[in-house]
């Protein structure tokens, strides 16, 4: 699906002569452009984290946006439906703290999972344990997607 139009393609190039003429690299963009793009990349990454797929939607990558949103949503719905453990910030050990970071990676879906799981977690059975893994996977996957949106905005990835 040719839905990708990285905004960084509109970058203006410096027409001034480059001292290292033998280098095949193009001239770097002006500093102000770079700072502006860095700020935009951070904003898009934050949006992509908070609402899965929103960062790619801002970049007009509709296919990727839809897939990011639907995969994270599916994993959270399944994980909460299987009564997986949603870690809170008051974790006692390192595993619980790491689990909280992974779960929080799902952005707004972290709170959706809490709202869906009205009966609380049940990890006394294998089903709840699988649900815990699916919830953590949703968060990590969303963080990866946010990183991808960040890199695309900085024109490091296509």
């Amino acid at each position, binding site marked *: *699906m*040719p839905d*990708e139009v990285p905004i960084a393609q509109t970058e203006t190039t410096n027409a001034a002569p480059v001292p290292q003429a033998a280098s095949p690299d193009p001239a770097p963009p002006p500093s102000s452009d770079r700072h502006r793009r860095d700020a935009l990349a951070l904003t898009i990454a934050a949006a992509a984290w908070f609402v899965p797929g929103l960062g790619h939607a801002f970049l007009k990558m509709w*296919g*990727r946006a839809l*897939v*990011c949103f639907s*995969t994270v949503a*599916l*994993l959270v*719905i*399944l994980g*909460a*439906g*299987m*009564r997986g453990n949603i870690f809170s910030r008051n974790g006692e050990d390192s595993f619980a703290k790491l689990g909280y970071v992974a779960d929080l990676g799902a952005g707004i879906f972290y709170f959706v999972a809490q*709202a*869906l*799981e*009205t009966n609380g977690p049940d990890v006394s059975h*294998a*089903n709840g344990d*699988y*649900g815990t*893994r*699916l919830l953590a*996977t949703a968060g990590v*996957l969303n963080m*990866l*997607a946010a990183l*991808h949106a960040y890199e695309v905005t900085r024109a490091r990835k*296509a």
Partner: protein
Amino acid sequence: MMPAHEFKLSHFQAMVIFALVISVAFGFLSRRSASHRAKYILWSFILFIVIGVGIGWAMYPFSH
């Protein structure tokens, strides 16, 4: 908000859903054309399942 119903999945069903969802997400994030995405998703899914089942069998002697 109440969940529609609780899901009861076996280990294998959970693994297949996990493999499918992650393969689709990775395929869309890492490839641009539809054909490349389809190939990537298919290969990734097959490898997830084969390696998962393989590790399960490799661990079998230690569970008895």
